[in-house]
């Protein structure tokens, strides 16, 4: 019997499989700056300063500028940095895969994500039946899809979409909802409270919901996707609200990315995007319980 592949080999195959999948479907691999003037303003994400600039927390804003400039299908695989995030599933430096598609919404992106994971599992592990944390996970064919409203009503006893409470939302998500999610197959939580939209488009309705999903597999949060927000005024309001929340919490407030807001004003076509944590996917493929065991120099 062959020895189990090393972490280095699994990582190499994983990157190759993801690129192969996206290349074959006409996505162009791009690179955008790692040192940026204006990291995306999010209430709970802190950027690492780098001289007078910051290390990017995600390539999202620059990739959307490329879409506004006419790109139709693009992806990027590269390092992102988030200050202070350290744990079994978090490293302050990690590898993100983001892909964006014009004329697509979040549910189209879910179809992409499922096909991508199917292809990557087959190529890297030779199977879509994985073992992680002592459990078997059937990555295909069934992905359970729940709205945030359904999941919270079932396991936390309230509906954050009807009446949002940010503190209770985070605590109940971690203490009640995430532990209750099925672990033998992937689970998608979708349609977030409008207040937790981040950079997602909101769909009118009573109540309105953010067109956003999060993918979980084996208890790991693997990917986040949006129907991207393209309205410049709404985007400006959200940046301002995040800046105010950060100011009130005594956290650094980053400059608004005016070039990005200009690009939205010029016109960002309807598009969808997915951000997928490569280290987490590697953990799942390798059956690793700690993120440190899937990077070559964990002490850094």
């Amino acid at each position, binding site marked *: 019997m062959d020895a189990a592949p090393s972490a280095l080999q699994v990582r190499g195959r994983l990157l190759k499989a993801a690129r192969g999948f996206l290349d074959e479907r006409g996505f162009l691999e791009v690179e955008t700056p790692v040192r940026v003037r204006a990291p995306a303003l999010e209430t*709970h994400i802190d950027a690492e300063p780098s001289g007078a600039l910051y290390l990017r927390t995600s390539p999202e804003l620059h990739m959307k500028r490329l879409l506004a400039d006419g790109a139709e299908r693009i992806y990027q695989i590269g390092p992102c940095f988030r200050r202070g995030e350290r744990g079994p599933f978090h490293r302050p430096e990690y590898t993100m895969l983001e892909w964006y598609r014009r004329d697509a919404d979040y549910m189209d992106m879910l179809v992409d994500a499922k096909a991508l994971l199917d292809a990557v599992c087959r190529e890297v592990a030779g199977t879509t039946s994985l073992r992680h944390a002592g459990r078997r996970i059937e990555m295909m064919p069934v992905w359970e899809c729940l709205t945030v409203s359904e999941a919270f009503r079932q396991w936390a006893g309230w509906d954050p979409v009807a009446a949002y409470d940010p503190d209770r*939302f985070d605590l109940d998500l971690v203490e009640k909802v995430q532990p209750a999610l099925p672990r033998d197959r992937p689970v998608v939580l979708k349609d977030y409270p409008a207040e937790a939209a981040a950079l997602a488009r909101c769909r009118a309705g009573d109540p309105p919901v953010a067109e956003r999903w999060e993918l979980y597999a084996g208890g790991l949060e693997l990917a986040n996707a949006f129907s991207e927000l393209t309205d410049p005024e709404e985007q400006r309001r959200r940046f301002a609200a995040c800046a105010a929340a950060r100011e009130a919490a005594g956290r650094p407030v980053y400059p608004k990315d005016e070039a990005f807001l200009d690009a939205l004003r010029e016109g960002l076509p309807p598009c969808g995007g997915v951000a997928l944590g490569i280290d987490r996917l590697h953990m799942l493929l390798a059956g690793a319980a700690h993120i440190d065991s899937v990077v070559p120099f964990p002490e850094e």
Partner: protein
Amino acid sequence: MYSASDLRKGLRIELEGVPYLITEFQFNKPGKGQALYVCRLKNLLTGGTHARTFRAVDKIGEPRLETKKLRYSYQDATGYVFLDANYEHATMSAEALGDQRFFLTEDAEVEVLYFNGEPIDITLPTFVEKTIVETEPGARGNTATNVLKPAKIEGGYEIQVPLFINTGDVAVIDTRTGAYVQRKT
């Protein structure tokens, strides 16, 4: 005061006047949400455990704790008495010591933990020797160590020992787990 980002496994904290030990610790940050610190806490007064999640904005008390090395001296009506060369002494009840009281041996050096000046816990030497006072007769020649039978040590506490152990033998016990380690020859 500690902030949530100071928390880690093994840290002792104070909540509403009660000292706790963090026995499990995990950083968690749900997508786009706030950083959360998911802990399992052991109440250092009662030994009970429960789960507790802290947020980044939470401030957590730092208990006034100190440790002293004392030697176990004797047991009397007031409890278990520990002394040092300067006649510093601490008395602890059977309830506060729990099963650890069965592993005390005369003159053994223990680390006594004080909270607000009161002794609340001890750390025993890792290995202690205890005489077996009651067990089924040993199977002669059976040196297997993977088959176990119950045996009582002084004080009546029951441990699991291999079949070749007899009443009167001295067993070395790991005080962290209460497990038999070897027979003292």
